[in-house]
């Protein structure tokens, strides 16, 4: 007897515009059917080891592990998942690439596969399969995923880094809606501070939140670390303007943000210490999970204000997945990537992670999570809007090193904390960037 029928298969394979999500046995039936028709046949007795970034939202990980279990049931391929904190995935992957042994797959951030493009397998067939089926990839996904003509990683999803704010306090300060322009935003920050409900954004070595806001500020005023040919152009009047703006903004922050790493603002926001900050939607998710009703009602999210250059300059975290060349199970790994990004799996996963993940395939914009809760709608477009690491320049190892070395973040922190003037801070950043981008 056939364990599935064509109807369940089709339901599961079209992105969720339809309201029916497959669950339980029906989902498993779909998974089995998928395994039989998928273009990738796992190797005999294949076992995949996968190292991923450690979840920020428990429900997200639960949903992920559920789809892993279904993959195993449908294909017989066991998947061993290990978790590492976000900052540790890159060194582990780099060492595995260097030594030629380790997990078959890494799921990391930003331009990870570009650090060792020759050590990861060609995933063009998977990218094409998914792109055709789900309305194509957003531009940043193509930039992050492709090296030359080859796809070397699949950008599974993005984590929107948006502004989190308290509605009541903002309204009291005279802002019914969140500011859409940088100068309004500064006025907002000042008003919030004046009434004793200040905000704050991380200026410590915070790879996620810190990098997100300083790059937004730099780009919003037209500043750039490098140009399209990877020449360092940070020393510009635009950079100086963005630094002066950031300093003015910093004056309104709660004290201590120079020491903040990625988790400080979450704690401070949940404890009513700050009333606006930049973060993923994980604060909202944590408030929901902790039954903090008042907080849940009062919190909202907004996209980044637009600066003088007149277009959004958002910088969201990208999570690409890759398969290493030393893996003995490339087919099983490819099958797994395609499987996890099928609507039947990805849609419920996005819903359960309360919008923390935004897929890089346009068809997923129709996921009901973006409309069922208006507070999450802003995250729908983060994949489409985000600029990539290195922005105008290449997304390769130089851009990744510049991020890891906190060149832009330290430049802003230098100015904001008053340790250096604008000229001095730019000079240091320029010198650091030239070191990484030198061609000799």
């Amino acid at each position, binding site marked *: 007897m056939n364990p599935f029928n064509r109807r369940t298969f089709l339901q599961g394979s079209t992105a969720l515009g339809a309201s029916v999500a497959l669950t339980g046995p029906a989902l498993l039936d779909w998974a089995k059917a998928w395994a039989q028709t998928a273009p990738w046949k796992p190797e005999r007795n294949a076992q995949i080891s996968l190292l991923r970034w450690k979840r920020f939202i428990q429900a997200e990980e639960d949903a992920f592990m559920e789809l892993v279990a279904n993959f195993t049931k449908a294909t017989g391929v066991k998947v061993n998942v290990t978790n590492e904190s976000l900052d540790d995935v890159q060194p582990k992957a780099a060492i595995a690439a260097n030594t030629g042994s380790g997990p078959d797959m890494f799921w990391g951030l930003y331009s990870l596969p570009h*650090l060792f493009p020759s050590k990861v397998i060609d995933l063009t067939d998977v990218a094409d399969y998914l792109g055709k089926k789900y309305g194509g990839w957003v531009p940043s996904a193509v930039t992050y995923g492709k090296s030359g003509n080859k796809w070397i990683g699949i950008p599974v999803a993005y984590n929107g880094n948006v502004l989190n704010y308290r509605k009541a306090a903002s309204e009291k300060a005279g802002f019914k809606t969140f500011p859409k322009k940088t100068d309004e935003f500064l006025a907002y920050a000042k008003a919030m501070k004046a009434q004793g409900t200040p905000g704050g954004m991380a*200026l410590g070595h915070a790879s996620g939140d810190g990098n997100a806001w300083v790059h937004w500020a730099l780009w919003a005023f037209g500043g750039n670390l490098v140009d399209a040919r990877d020449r360092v152009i940070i020393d510009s009047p635009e950079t100086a303007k963005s630094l002066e703006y950031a300093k003015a903004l910093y004056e309104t922050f709660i004290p201590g943000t120079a*020491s903040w790493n990625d988790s400080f603002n979450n704690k401070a926001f949940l404890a009513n210490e700050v009333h606006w900050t930049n973060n993923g939607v994980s604060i909202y998710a944590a408030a929901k999970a902790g039954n903090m009703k008042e907080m849940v009602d009062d919190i909202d999210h907004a996209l980044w204000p637009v600066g003088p250059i007149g277009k959004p300059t958002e910088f969201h975290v990208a999570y690409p997945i890759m398969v290493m060349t030393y893996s003995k199970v490339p087919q099983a790994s490819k099958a797994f990537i395609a499987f996890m990004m099928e609507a039947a799996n990805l849609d419920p996963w996005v819903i359960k992670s309360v919008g923390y993940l935004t897929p890089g395939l346009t068809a997923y914009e129709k996921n009901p999570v973006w409309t069922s809760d208006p507070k999450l709608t802003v995250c729908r477009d983060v994949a489409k809007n985000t600029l990539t690491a290195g922005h105008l320049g290449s997304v390769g*190892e130089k851009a990744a*090193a510049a991020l890891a070395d906190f060149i832009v973040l330290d430049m802003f*922190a230098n100015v904001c904390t008053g340790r250096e003037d604008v000229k001095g801070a730019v000079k240091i950043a320029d010198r650091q960037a030239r070191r990484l981008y030198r061609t000799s």
Partner: protein
Amino acid sequence: MADVALDPRTAKRPLLHATAWDRLKVNHNWLGLWFMLPAAAILVLFLAYPLGLGIWISFTDTRIGRSGVFVGVENYEWLWDDTVFWLSVFNTLLYTGVASVFKFAIGLYLAILLNQHMPFKAMIRAIVLIPFIVPTVLSAIAFWWLFDSQFSIISWSLKKIGFISSNIDFLGDFWNARWSVIFANVWRGIPFVAITLLAGLQTVPPSLYEAATIDGASRWQMFRFITYPLLTPIIAVVMTFSVLFTFTDFQLIWAMTRGGPVNATHLMATLSYQRAILGGYLGEGSAIATAMIPFLLACILISWFGLQRRKWQQGESND
């Protein structure tokens, strides 16, 4: 038959012609060499080879994921006028210097205290070891909370008492951050110094103190002319180790500040890790790590020549 029996070649050869191999078989030095070999192999494999490889990589442009080519001293040239690198050198020297002085002073004081007769002596000695036993990362996280910019119990308590009106910015202000990480390091390092010096104190023969008491020596004189000189070799060893551990510290800084704010607490070890492993520039990271070697060698030489090679240690009197 008789000819054969008298043939000197067959009858006397074992006595006259012991081969080199025969001699070697009973040579103690030769045997000793073989006994040393496993230890030497371990040292070469796990110490000399990585060290040599690290130094070699610092002369190449190796990135993570691909091997590099020899670039001479280019990495060092770039470091030479790199303000962040020199800041990390300054931080490392400050961190090591200040922390070591405090660890030595407090450690010695504690050791002398613990050497006295007191109730629950064994238990108190065990308690003193606690900071050393707790995994560094755990104690670093505890300090991280203590020094939190918003939720610090220290700030909270001082505010409640009324000493301060706003939170102390422990890890966000440059000098506060430096003193905070130094404090954490001192807290963690004291037990090692104290317990080792205590062991040294217990080897000082009580008869010397008795003789000094009869001669009417004061407590300070007893410390200055008996305890301190007899303790010097141990102090040299303990402080060499302590300085080396502090100089190469990584975990405390990484867990507490990641080198922030604005690199004010970046040590050479953390900067090397940031650039080599997170940034992927193995060549440059190795150059920073290699740049630590001269400092470490200097420490060892100072302790070796300055403190350990005293003549009295070899049974002669001091000049």
